[in-house]
């Protein structure tokens, strides 16, 4: 199926970035209308997947889109930046291009000669207050179109089209969903470290469209997305009572999750979005509870004199991973969603914390703490196959991009003097291969990122 659609040369290039076969999930993201320009390409999709570390990123050319400007050029730039950041593509320097903004069938020889394996072309038309964007993906060597789609949206929403095009390219060539049409919510930190102001902030995954969700009057921590990407759960110190709240990120309306006794913390939504799993501290012990969002009734999953925190559901909702000091120090445990069948899964050197289940279900990412070093790593849900992806003085809190290929987390640098000089807190991302670590730009110090699912519709 794949071979009939992609040329041997492009397939070869893809194989070189370590792709192998894998079943694919259906459905592409849509802004308002998707128009198939090539029915054959829409109907059949590649079945290829990344399993090992990459070697060579795929050379791809993304000239400015023709038609209405500046959007045509800007959309091409956003796509270029997205694909470059993924580490799996190598966008070719535009100064090497021999033709601009091809509208009809490109002159493929001029793209072959500069080494492009894939080519993205497009056209933007302004229709009143809306933009219509057509984009096509070409396999350069045989000169065939392998994807063609049109989107329309409100003009201020143009970046989303660029992200959706990026996801379409990523998915068509790599055989798994992208993660560009997503947002990141995190804690923005300012002021001296002993009097930090901590505000929730949200931005597109590339750092654009940044805005604050809370005003900093009370510290807010540990924001986590609802599967619908429109709501978050987090902990706020409002009125000096640290408890879990919910917020609609569009209206910024906050509601207390429930009037439970004592501190509630480390919330996360269930995969179906109908409940929140969290820790509640009563009598010095932190235990895990699930709160039903309709009835607001709680169900206790763990008990006993331990600190059970950072619970996270498996993507099928059947299991929960959390960290607990029940065995003497912080380690990872997996249990059934009803609290039964608890078993420890971390047995390496040091303490283990902040487990998160990959959206693909195949891995659990964690923070590992040893005396001098913190690390971000992944292991299988049974605890086997542990791999450390990044190590440093202080790093924690991994969060998966929706395709399970990339993690975001935060890094802190060590204070060099008694006034805390030299300290910083910054977001970073890294592939689950351990390659391609990059800073995620934020206006100020930042911690506690959570990566959203793909934005629906």
């Amino acid at each position, binding site marked *: 199926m794949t071979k009939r659609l992609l040329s041997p040369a492009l397939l070869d290039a893809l194989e070189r970035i370590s792709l192998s076969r894998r079943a694919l999930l259906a459905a592409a993201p849509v802004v308002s209308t998707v128009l198939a320009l090539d029915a054959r390409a829409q109907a059949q999709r590649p079945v290829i997947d990344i399993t090992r570390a990459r070697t060579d990123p795929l050379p791809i050319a993304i000239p400015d889109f023709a038609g209405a400007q500046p959007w045509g050029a800007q959309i091409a730039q956003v796509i270029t930046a997205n694909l470059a950041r993924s580490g799996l593509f190598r966008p070719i320097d535009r100064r090497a291009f021999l033709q601009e903004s091809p509208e009809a069938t490109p002159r493929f020889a001029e793209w072959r000669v500069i080494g492009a394996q894939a080519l993205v072309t497009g056209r933007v038309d302004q229709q009143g207050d809306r933009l219509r964007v057509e984009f096509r993906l070409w396999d350069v060597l045989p000169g065939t179109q392998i994807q063609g789609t049109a989107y329309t949206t409100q003009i201020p929403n143009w970046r989303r089209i660029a992200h959706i095009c990026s996801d379409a390219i990523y998915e068509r060539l790599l055989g798994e969903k992208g993660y560009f049409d997503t947002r990141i919510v995190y804690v923005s930190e300012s002021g*001296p*470290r*002993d*009097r*930090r102001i*901590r505000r929730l902030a949200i931005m597109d995954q590339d750092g654009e469209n940044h805005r604050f969700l809370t005003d900093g009057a009370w*510290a807010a*921590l*540990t924001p986590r997305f609802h599967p619908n990407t429109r709501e978050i759960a987090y*902990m706020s110190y409002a009125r*000096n*009572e*640290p408890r879990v709240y919910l917020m609609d990120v569009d209206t910024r309306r906050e509601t207390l999750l429930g009037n439970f006794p004592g*501190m509630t*913390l*480390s919330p996360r939504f269930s995969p179906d979005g109908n409940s929140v799993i969290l*820790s509640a*501290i009563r*009598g*010095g*012990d*932190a235990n895990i509870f699930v709160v039903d969002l309709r009835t607001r009734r709680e169900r206790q999953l763990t008990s006993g004199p331990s*600190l059970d*925190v*950072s619970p996270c559901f498996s993507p099928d909702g059947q299991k929960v991973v959390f*960290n607990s*000091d029940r065995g003497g*120090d*912080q380690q990872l445990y997996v249990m059934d969603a009803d609290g039964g069948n608890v078993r420890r899964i971390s047995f390496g050197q040091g303490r283990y*914390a*902040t487990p998160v289940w990959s959206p693909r279900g195949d891995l659990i990412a964690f*923070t590992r*703490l040893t005396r001098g070093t913190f690390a971000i790593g992944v292991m299988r849900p049974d605890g086997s196959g542990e791999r450390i992806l990044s190590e440093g003085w*202080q790093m*924690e*809190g991994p969060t998966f991009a929706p395709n399970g290929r990339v993690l975001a987390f935060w890094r*802190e640098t*060590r*204070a*060099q*003097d*008694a*006034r*805390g000089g030299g*300290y910083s807190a910054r977001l970073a991302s890294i592939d689950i291969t351990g390659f391609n670590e990059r800073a995620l730009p934020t206006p100020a110090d930042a*911690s*506690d990122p959570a990566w959203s699912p793909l934005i629906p519709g």
Partner: protein
Amino acid sequence: MKTKLLAPIAALALVAACAQAPDQGGAVTGAGQATGPRPGTQEDLVANVGDRVFFDFDRSDIRPDQAPTLDRQAAWLQTHRQVRVIIEGHADERGTREYNLALGQRRADSARNYLIARGVDGARISTISYGKDRPAVLGSNEEAWAQNRRAVTVVQ
């Protein structure tokens, strides 16, 4: 003339005492002097009793060397029966945020339970945890971390 001069000096001294409080920790002992802070205030607690106790790494039990501070706090709270306090639990930076929030709460609860066992009415003592997010000392070394693993009693 004299009183005009004295007022700003007294205010300065008070600010300095507050700023120093984290470094003095629970080591401060001794009876209040006639010219000292007003009895029953936070300043009195800091200067004459000790407002905080320290914990070992990843522990929340009251260390034997810290118990005398809580004994004095219990006696002080028995003397000043109108005073209500909140105990703030903290952790050092060598842990994860969520776990340290729980650990800080457990430390605050541990100190509260100790005071209750010494006869203080539990209704007068509330608790809150700031985890590792409000260090008293900004350094990044063992000495700083030892100062930051603490439960601080604050007059409300």
